[in-house]
């Protein structure tokens, strides 16, 4: 059972990927390989025995070099990926902002996409009707509402995405680098909103390559290295240690 004070508990999480260069996609290939006993799977461990707790109301950062398993860990927390081993427990409604434009169909207009994306997150039509103006207001995209999203810039897509995901106060908000594409004014606006959520006891999990942003927002941090927890604790400590990493 999850401890009542924790929003997320990870216990010995492992995520294995099959990295064999050729993915078998046809029955014929499969049978041939099977007969020749060539069905080898090159195992790659992207996340290796990671355990940590995130307290309710915490703002929690994950730092680490490219490919160290940050996004994979976030996907495991939000239920998108099922870990190969270990247990994940979470409490409350999760709003994941894993990647830009998740749940958008670029052929449709922003107006249509707001409803589509809302339903992807499990919000009802009535709820979206009520919140529609909020979303448009926050994203500052009113003039572009009836333009197909394929004609949007990446920052504009991020604005709409962030506005939809944060229109409720989710219990857990997961942000994977998407703040980086907004301009500095919008970044400030997002940070204000995150700060406000913190006061409302939302747990926020942030991945960012901007150490300043992590230092500014987060209370606690974990530093992942090659899929393992290298260090965990107060943001200042972890970030200082991380900043001192040398190129090998």
């Amino acid at each position, binding site marked *: 059972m999850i401890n009542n004070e924790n929003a997320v508990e990870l216990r010995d999480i492992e995520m294995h990927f099959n990295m064999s260069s050729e993915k078998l*996609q*046809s029955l014929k290939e499969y049978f041939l390989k099977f007969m020749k006993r060539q069905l080898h799977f090159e195992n790659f461990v992207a996340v290796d025995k990671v355990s940590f707790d995130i307290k309710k109301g915490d703002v929690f950062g994950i730092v680490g070099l490219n490919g160290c398993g940050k996004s994979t860990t976030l996907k495991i927390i939000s*239920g998108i990926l099922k870990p190969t081993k270990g247990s994940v427990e*979470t409490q409350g409604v999760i709003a994941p902002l894993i*990647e830009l434009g998740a*749940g958008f169909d670029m052929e449709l207009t922003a107006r249509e996409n707001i409803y589509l994306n809302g339903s992807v997150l*499990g*919000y009802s039509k009535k709820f979206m009707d009520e919140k529609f103006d909020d979303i448009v207001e926050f994203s500052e995209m009113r003039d572009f509402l009836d333009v197909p999203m394929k004609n949007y810039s990446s920052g504009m897509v991020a604005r709409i995405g962030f506005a939809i995901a944060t229109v409720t106060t989710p219990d857990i908000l997961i942000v994977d680098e998407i703040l980086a594409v907004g301009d500095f004014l919008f970044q400030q606006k997002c940070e204000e909103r995150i700060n406000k959520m913190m006061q409302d006891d939302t747990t926020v999990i942030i991945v960012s390559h901007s150490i300043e942003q992590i230092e500014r927002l987060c209370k606690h941090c974990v530093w992942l290295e090659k899929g393992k927890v290298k260090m965990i604790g107060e943001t200042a400590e972890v970030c200082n240690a991380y900043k001192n990493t040398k190129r090998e």
Partner: protein
Amino acid sequence: MSSVATNKRSFFSDFKRFMPLLKNLVAKDFKIKYRRSILGVAWSVLNPLFTMLVLTIVFKVILRVKVGPGVDFATYYIVGASLWNFFSEATSTSLSSILTSGALIRKVYIPKYIFPLEKCVFALVNFSFSLVAVLAVMLIRGVYPTWATLLFPIPVIYCFIFACGLSLFLSAVTVYFRDVQHLYGVLLTMWIYLTPILYSTETLEQLAPSMQFVKYILYLNPMTHYINYFRAVVMYGVYGDLPSIEINVVCIAMSLAMLGFGALVFKKAEGKFILHL
């Protein structure tokens, strides 16, 4: 909004939460299908009519196929074909539904059965348009609806459940083996000829003794039962008797067996979808 714990998601709370998504996806498919076509929805009515015209000329006029005493061929054909088309559209579009939703599946948590289910619902929407064509042909050919016609949702629901089950199975397997798409295309072609759409099960009574096995294949084919049921109620008084309790039991058993099997395979496979997309 219900609370969602990663490893305690219940089927029913998920289903309720994602109903609006199902609706939105159907609406999206609808918009994309009928956008930039002048006749739009009318195509769903005209298409079966044209096919019916051609096939009636070939099979009735040229080949002189008989489907039973006093049974109008054009009506016989279009009633059966409409349900078959629903089934074949539902299953063949579902087949690749998980693959084409990869972008979503990789980024957000959504119960994955939504995608094949959505294709089946969308096929059902298209089917309801084709019913206009069915009704038109019936009126033109003088096969008038009776009170029994109102029972038509029953075989449609049986067929829908069967199609959902098969769709779950196909969409899951296709993620692992892409050539299922081609295989299923071939299977559908054989399947349509082993379903009484252009001929009737009654004519099979005259089969040579050595060919009796064809009859058994037909009876093992669930589509035979759904289509015959559908005809029996829609064309009541002209073709077939009202389905007995036994027939209902057979239909329900076949539908639920397929749904159970499909759901089982899907559930076993869905955890690993994301690694293969």
